[in-house]
C-alpha cells in the first residue's frame, strides 16, 4: 500500500471510525506525565513527548494476570473444577506507540511464543488482537540509545503502521495487513511528504547523542563476560529494587501463585524480577544468585549476552532509556554496556 496522508484536523474522524472496530489507546498527559490512556478526545492525543513514563508492556503482559479460577467441588466427579479466564473481548489499537516499544514486543514474541511447548496463550491472544500504529520520533531525548540496539527513531519492526508527524498532517505508512486496514480510505501521500518524512528521520537519527558499543560484547564468550572484573564495581550501589525491570519494555519475568480462600481460588501470575533475592531462591534454601553482584550481573548479561546468543543476535534492550531516568541510584545501562564492551 502506498504511503497515505491524514490532515491532523481530521484525526478525530479518523480515530472515531477506528473506535467502531477497536478500543483505541494513545499516550496522553495523565498527572503531568505522558502515559497510556483510552482515547476519549482526539485533541488529547500527545504529539510532542519523548516516550510514555512506563512501558506499554502491560497491554500484553499485565502486572497481575489471572490465568484461571478453580473450585473444589465435593460432589463433582472430577473433584476440582478449573475455569479458564476469558480471552480478550475486543480488538485493541495502540496509537502513537514509539518504535522502540514495538521493537521490544517483537523481541518478546520470540520468547513468549517459541514452539508448541513454549506458546504463551495469554501473551499471544493479546498480541494477535492488538494493532500497533507507531509514531516516528522526531526529537529523541538524550537518554535514548535505540540506534545502538537494533532499533531507531523510525524503526518499523513490530509495527503494523508508522505515522510521521509532519506538522499539520500525518504521513501514514502501512506495514502489515493490520496496518492496511487502519490506513484504508486515506488519500495517497505526495512525494514531497514522503521526502519530508525521510528528512525528519535522518535528522532524528543524527540527534541521538548517546550510543553504546556491542562489538566486543558480541565477540566475547559468555564466560569471559561473566567473569569480567567490572562486575565487582557495577553492583555496589544497586538497591536491588525492581524499578529498572518493571519500567522496562523487554523485561518479562513472572511468578505464578495459587491463591485460595476456602474451597476456591485462582491462579495468578505477577511480574517478578531478577533483582530480588527471592527470584531464584530454592525451596532447599540454596540460592544460585545469592549475592547482589550475581543479581545485577544477571540483568545485564541476560539482556546483552544470553538473549543475543539464544535469539540470533536480538538484544534484550531497545534503548528506550527508561531505566536510565528512573533508577534511584543512576546505574546507567549505557555505562554498564560500555564497560562490558571495553
Amino acid at each position, binding site marked *: 500500500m502506498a504511503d497515505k496522508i491524514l490532515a491532523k484536523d481530521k484525526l478525530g474522524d479518523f480515530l472515531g471510525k477506528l473506535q467502531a472496530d477497536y478500543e483505541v489507546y494513545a499516550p496522553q498527559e495523565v498527572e503531568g506525565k505522558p502515559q497510556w490512556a483510552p482515547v476519549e478526545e482526539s485533541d488529547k492525543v*500527545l504529539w510532542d513527548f519523548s516516550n510514555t513514563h512506563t512501558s506499554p508492556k502491560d497491554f500484553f503482559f499485565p502486572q497481575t494476570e489471572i490465568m484461571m479460577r478453580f473450585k473444589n467441588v465435593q460432589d463433582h466427579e472430577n473433584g476440582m473444577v478449573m475455569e479458564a479466564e476469558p480471552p480478550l473481548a475486543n480488538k485493541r489499537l495502540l496509537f502513537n506507540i514509539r518504535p522502540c516499544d514495538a521493537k521490544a514486543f517483537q523481541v518478546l514474541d520470540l520468547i513468549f511464543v517459541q514452539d508448541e511447548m513454549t506458546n504463551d496463550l495469554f501473551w499471544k491472544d493479546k498480541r494477535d488482537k492488538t494493532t500497533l500504529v507507531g509514531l516516528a520520533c522526531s526529537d529523541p531525548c538524550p537518554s535514548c540509545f535505540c540506534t545502538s540496539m537494533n532499533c531507531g527513531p523510525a524503526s518499523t519492526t513490530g509495527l503494523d503502521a508508522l505515522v510521521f508527524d509532519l506538522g499539520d498532517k500525518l504521513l501514514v505508512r502501512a506495514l502489515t495487513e493490520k496496518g492496511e486496514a487502519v490506513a484504508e480510505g486515506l488519500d495517497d501521500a505526495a512525494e514531497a511528504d514522503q521526502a519530508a518524512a525521510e528528512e525528519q528521520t535522518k535528522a532524528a537519527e543524527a540527534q541521538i547523542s548517546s550510543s553504546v558499543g556491542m562489538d566486543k560484547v558480541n565477540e566475547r564468550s559468555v564466560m569471559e563476560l561473566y567473569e569480567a572484573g567490572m562486575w565487582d564495581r557495577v553492583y555496589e550501589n544497586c538497591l536491588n*529494587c525492581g524499578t529498572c525491570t518493571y519500567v522496562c519494555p523487554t523485561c518479562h519475568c513472572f511468578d505464578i501463585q495459587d491463591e485460595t480462600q476456602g474451597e476456591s481460588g485462582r491462579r495468578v501470575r*505477577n511480574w517478578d524480577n531478577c533483582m530480588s533475592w527471592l527470584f531464584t531462591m530454592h525451596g532447599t534454601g540454596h540460592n544460585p544468585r545469592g549475592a547482589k553482584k550475581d543479581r545485577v550481573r544477571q540483568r545485564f548479561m541476560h539482556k546483552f549476552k544470553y538473549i543475543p546468543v539464544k535469539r540470533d543476535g536480538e538484544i534484550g534492550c531497545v534503548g528506550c532509556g527508561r531505566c536510565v531516568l528512573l533508577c534511584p541510584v543512576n546505574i546507567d545501562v549505557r555505562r554498564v554496556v560500555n564497560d562490558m564492551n571495553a
Partner: protein
Amino acid sequence: MEAVAQKIRETAAKLLSEGKVDCVIGYAQGTVPMRDYPYFAYTPEEAQNLTWSPFCCNNLANFLIRRPKGEIGKVAIVAQGCVSRSIVGLIKENQIAREDVYILGVPSPGMVDRRKVQDRFPLKTITEVTVDGEDLVVKGKDFEERIPQKEVRRDNCYTCVQRNPVIVDEMMGEEGPSDWGGNIDAVAAPWEKLEPGERWEAFIDEVDSCIRCYACRDACPLCYCHVCFVDEAMPQWCGKTQDEADVATFHILRAFHCAGRCTDCGACESACPQGIKVRRFTSKIEKDIRELYDYSPGMDLEATPPLSVYRPNDPQEFIK
C-alpha cells in the same frame, strides 16, 4: 557547596591514603540531570570523583547495612542531618558499631525534588540542570530558565528539623541553621482533618499507581530485615498481586514497621519511580510518637527508642 565538595574530596583522599578507612561513601555526579548517585571511593584517586550538591537524594546510611559482613572494612560516610540520624538509629538497633564509621558531617543544603522541577516544564525534556548560587539553571532544547532552589525542594527538606549532623567525626562545612522553619507536624495534618472513610480514600488514591518495585523500601535505611514481610513465603503475609488489598497491605505494614524510627530523610520518595508520597504514611505515626513519648528518632545516641523498651510502670493496662 563547591567548597564542601572540595573538602569532602580532600578529606576522603587523606583518610584513604593514610589507611584510616578502606572506603568513603559519598556521591558522584550522575549521568542524567538532578541525579547524583551514591559512590564508593576506595583510593585517593577515586576520591576525586566525589561531589556534593542539592541532587544527593539517597540516604547513604543505607549502604552501611545490607552487605555481607567484612565486605568493606572501616568506612567514612558523608552525612547531613537526616543521614546522621539514621546512623544513630542503626547504632541503637545494633546494626553497626559507632567505631566502624567515620562521619564526614555536612550541613544539608536542602535537596531538590527533580519532579517539582520537571513539573515546571510539562512533557519537555530537561537536558541539563546546574546550580548557580541559590538558583538552579534548567536547560532544555528550546528553553533555559532560572528557578530558585527554595521553590523546588523535596517536601521533607522544608520541614526538616535537623539539617546539621547529630554525630560527626569531621565537619566538611560550617553548621547552618538547624531547620528551614517548616512545621514537621504539618505533614500529618492533612490526615488528621479527614474522616476515616476519606482517609482511606486519600490513602488508596496515593498508592493507586504503585508498581510494587519496592524502591521505597530498598532505599530506606530502616528496611534492613533479612526477609521483609512482603517476601516472606511461609506464611505469606501479603499477596503478590496489584489488587488494592495487597498494595495497601504492603504500604500500611511498611509504615508501621517504621514507627518511631523514620528520620524523614525522604529517600523513599526520591527513589519512587511513580512519585508516590510514601513519607506521608509514616508522618502521622511519627507525630503520635513525638506527642506520646516526646521522642524524635535518631536525635540522640543516649535516648531510648520508645517502641523497643519495656517499662514495668507502663501506664497502658494491656501491656502488663
